[in-house]
Structures are given as C-alpha cells and as structure tokens.
C-alpha cells in the first residue's frame, strides 16, 4: 500500500520509478475520501490541483530531479495561506477566503515538487489543545475515535497517523504540533524559532509561533524540515542560517548522551500512565549509555500562566485585522465601529473571543505591569534556566503531554484544566528552542509521547539524537489498531 509508506520510502520508489507521482497523489486522495469521514482531519481537499501538481512533479522526476521529496504528497494546517485555496483558520470569520498568495513555506515545498493534498482542521486560529474549537468539524483520534486527537494541529496529526499523508505541517505556539503528535502516536517537531518562515502563517502569537512537521518517523521529520526551512526576507524574524544543514542524521549515539530531566515535569501534574511510560523509555536510553540526571528548573510551573498572558496579548493585537473590511464576511450593522464589533462578536468563536478579552485586559492601562511585563520577565527567567541546563547537558527530556488521551468533550466544563495540558511544551516556545515529540510507549491502549528539547540552532543535533532514541525505543510507525 502506497499510503503505508513513509515519506523516505515513497521518495525512493518515486525515484526508482516504481511508483509515479500521480499514483502517489491518487492513493492518498482516495484514502482521504475513503476514511476521513470517520476522522475529520481535512477541511478542504484539492484533488484537481494535486493531480496537476503531481503530473508536474513527475516531469521533474523524469528529468532526473534530485531534491529529496519531489512528488511526495503533504497536508497543511488550514492557518497557512495557499493561493486560490480556501484558508479559514477553522473560523467563520474567514469562511470562503482564498488568499491571493502562498505562504513562503508553501513556496518552498512546491518548488521542490511536493504535492499539496488539502488543508487540515485545527482549533479556531490555533487556540486550543483538542481541535474542538474548530467552527467546522470534530476531529477524532485514530487510536480511539471517542478521544480528541489533541490540538491545535489535530487535523495534521490525524492525517499523518491515519496514513492520509506521509507528511503534514502544523504550527506550534505552545505545543500545538508536539501535543497532538503525542496523542496520535506520531513524531512532531517544532524547530528553533526563525528556521521556517512565518510569512503567510496567519499570526496568533508572533513571538511564539513556529511551523513544524508531523510524520511517522524521525527520518521523515528531518526530510520535511529540510524541505520547509530556510531564510526568508519576507519574515523579519527569519534566522540568517535557517537552512537545514544535512549532516548524518543516523550518526547520533546515545552513548554518553547527557540527558536532563526536569523534576517539575515528572511530578503530580503528570498522569501515572504517562510518567511510568516515560520512565521506562528513559531506562531504555540509559541501557544504551545515556546519562540521565534529574534537574530542577523552578520557573517551569509558571509556564502556563506566562503563556496565557503573552499569547493572548499578542493575539489581541494580531486578530485586530479581522474587521470585515479586507477579507472574510461582514455583519453589516450601523456605523463602522458597530459593524466591526458585530462582525467580530458573531463570527469569532467563544475561545477566540476569550483570548482576545484576556489579552486586551492584560495590555490595558493599569494592568500592563502586573500581567504583561511580569510575564515577559518570567519568560526571560525560564529561557535562562533552560539555557543553563542545556550548557551542562545535551538534551532536556520530559513527557510531551501530562495525559495520554482525553475524551471529546471531557474538558467542556473545565477549560482551565485543558489549558494546563501545555505545561511541558510551553518552555520551548518561550525560549525559541527546537523540540520534538517521539512515541515512547503506551498508557493503556493509547500512545505516549516523550519530548526532547535542545539549544537554539541545535535542530540537526536534536534530530540525530531523536533518531537514535527512536531506534532504541522502537515505537515510531506503529499503526493505530483500527487501521
């Protein structure tokens, strides 16, 4: 089955002409048609465009194109702009909007002949950890359809997990790539802030947002990262040395690897099943020669508060552009201000409005110092504590998510509890660090993710460490039993 292949395997078959790019695209589009009614991963599929792109990719392959992923299909979170293809951010306020340009990341992927299959579901404007705040549909975890796939890149996680795409890109502001990857049993990577251009990623929290891939193996993650990364002059936060440096991914070793495990992320906030699973995985790494040390980073428990001040503050400013004038629908009512307020009040969903309210309040006169400034100070402290530990260790490891799974609707009455699920993933966004979630075991029948975080620009080294850990643990690429 073509759809069961990893991106690396598929790329090899495309190059050897065993499979054509059109066959690869068709196989994945057919699979989406066949199974996505059960999972709700996609908001839009673009069959005609995909088949045309696949034909063009085949010409490149026939001409001996040697870029790694030519002809390989991918899915894209629906908050990344695609020219002429609806981009909704899973919000009614962008219903029907077709961007007049491609995000830089899309240009990068298309320029090497990768084929866009469709746009995936997310929490509205990427605000959530369950994909339940989407204005359009419910997305289900392939490991248990009564459970959430996590979020906000839930659609992309399910697309990769249920073999509807070998590679799916998401965005990660506080864990939105890594947490759904953990809950769906796939690999999810948030690169160093600034390595993948944010131009054309609809901004949520600009100082934290970073695009990253979800795949079924670390090797595919490295390939997907390589295709997407690179300096972009349209994003002033893009790093000068953003391009991937292809070293030897498979040369990483666990022997003598210095691993720091923050005790703050292995305590009572972590469910027993997840903690046990991560402890077993750490033991496995230890048997391979890793040196595991428990460390203390006292600021980490403040991460959730810090995040829920900084991200909404930035969002309240970024989402100011949705006023019914330049894009999307408008509710016409009275004068300009009334029209704007009606459009925003009626077309934004509850969670988005809540975060705009929090951000507006935290930035308003009299509260700035107590909330926003203080949160930025704690952010600096957290990044410093992390950097210090990373000077003395090669990698920081923790669980990715405090829980392995939760049922759809489980947090309907306790949104604060849902927000605390970002505890382990937030620190990497605060400091801009590269961070990857790997399947490391099970809690009951559900997959558990282990989070590896490294220093700024340490992406290549982190990926090679993750590859070695993946080989030692052997949990990547397991199929959900339902498939």
């Amino acid at each position, binding site marked *: 089955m073509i759809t069961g292949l990893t991106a690396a395997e598929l790329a090899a078959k495309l190059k050897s002409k065993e499979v054509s790019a059109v066959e690869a695209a068709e196989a994945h589009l057919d699979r989406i048609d066949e199974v996505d009614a059960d999972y709700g991963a996609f908001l839009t599929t673009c069959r005609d465009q995909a088949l045309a792109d696949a034909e063009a990719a085949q010409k490149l392959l026939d001409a001996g194109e040697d870029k790694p992923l030519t002809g390989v299909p991918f899915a894209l979170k629906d908050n990344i702009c695609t020219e002429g293809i609806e981009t909704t951010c899973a919000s009614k306020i962008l219903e029907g909007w077709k961007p007049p340009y491609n995000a830089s990341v899309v240009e990068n992927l298309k320029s090497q002949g990768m084929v866009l299959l469709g746009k995936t579901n997310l929490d509205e404007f990427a605000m959530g950890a369950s994909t339940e705040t989407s204005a359009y549909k419910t997305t289900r975890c392939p490991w248990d359809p009564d459970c959430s796939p996590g979020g906000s890149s839930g659609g992309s996680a399910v697309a990769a997990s249920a073999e509807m795409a070998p590679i799916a890109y998401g965005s990660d502001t506080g864990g939105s790539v890594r947490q759904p990857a953990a809950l769906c049993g796939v690999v999810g990577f948030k690169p160093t802030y600034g390595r993948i251009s944010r131009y054309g990623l609809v901004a949520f929290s600009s100082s934290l947002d970073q695009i990253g891939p979800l795949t079924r193996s670390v090797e595919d993650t490295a390939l997907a990262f390589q295709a997407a990364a690179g300096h972009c002059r349209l994003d002033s936060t893009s790093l000068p040395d953003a391009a991937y440096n292809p070293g030897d991914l498979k040369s990483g070793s666990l022997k003598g690897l210095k691993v720091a495990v923050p005790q703050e992320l292995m305590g009572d906030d972590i469910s027993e099943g997840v903690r046990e699973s991560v402890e077993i995985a750490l033991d496995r790494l230890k048997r391979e020669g890793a040196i595991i040390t428990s460390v203390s980073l006292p600021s980490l428990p403040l991460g959730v508060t810090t995040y829920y001040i900084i991200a909404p503050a930035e969002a309240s400013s970024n989402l100011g552009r949705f006023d019914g004038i330049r894009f999307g629908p408008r509710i016409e009512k009275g004068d300009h201000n009334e029209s704007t307020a009606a459009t925003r009040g009626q077309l934004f969903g509850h969670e988005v409005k809540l975060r705009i309210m*929090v951000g507006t309040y935290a930035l308003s006169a009299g509260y700035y110092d107590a909330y926003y400034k203080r949160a930025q100070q704690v952010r600096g402290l957290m990044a410093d504590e992390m950097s210090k530990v990373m000077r003395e260790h090669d990698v920081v490891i923790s669980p990715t998510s405090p829980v392995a799974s939760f049922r759809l609707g489980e947090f309907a009455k306790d949104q604060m509890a849902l927000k605390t699920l970002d505890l382990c993933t937030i620190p990497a966004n605060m400091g801009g660090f590269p961070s990857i979630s790997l399947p490391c075991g099970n809690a009951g029948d559900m997959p558990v993710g282990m989070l590896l975080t490294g220093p700024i620009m340490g992406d290549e080294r982190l990926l090679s460490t993750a590859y070695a850990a993946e080989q030692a643990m052997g949990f990547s690429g397991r199929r959900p039993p339902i498939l």
Partner: protein
Amino acid sequence: MSISLDEVKHTAQLARLELDEAELKAFQLELNALLGHFEDIQAIDTTGLVPKPHAVELTNVWSEDQVEQGLSREEALEGAFKTRAGLFIVPTVIEESH
C-alpha cells in the same frame, strides 16, 4: 484581583467585540478563573529580571530598498466583502453634521 461586569464591558468595547449579556457574564466568570490562575506569577520577586519579548533576538534586519511587484489592486481587493471603483467600501465612519 477580580474583574467586574463593567470592566468586562469596557474590555469588550476596547476589543471591538459585540457581546450579549449572557456572554458578558460568561466571560466575567472565565476571566476571573484565569486571573485567579495568574496569581502564581504575582507571588514571585521579579527584581532585576529582564523582560524577554522575543524568542530569538535579531537586530537591524534590513532589506534592499528596491521597487518590486506586489499584489495587483484586483488581487488585493478580491477577498473583500464590498468594493467599488477599486476601493474597499466601509460603513460610515464620520457622520455629516446637520
């Protein structure tokens, strides 16, 4: 710290969000729950801590000052709710005085 219903209304006005009474009350409850959670950073001593606004600091990001082709007027307007004669049409901003 807790937030009154009037403050919720004022914040909604600043944010240009039309909310009905039920929503205002719901947001008051949720905002107070969040503000309660935010107490943990009120308790720490921030003396000497430098605020960090960016994940990775870059300074003086310049680009060449050259003329380039941007979106055409048609492309820029094609997603708009209402346009006329190549312009965005917006509801009345300033009323004529009588």
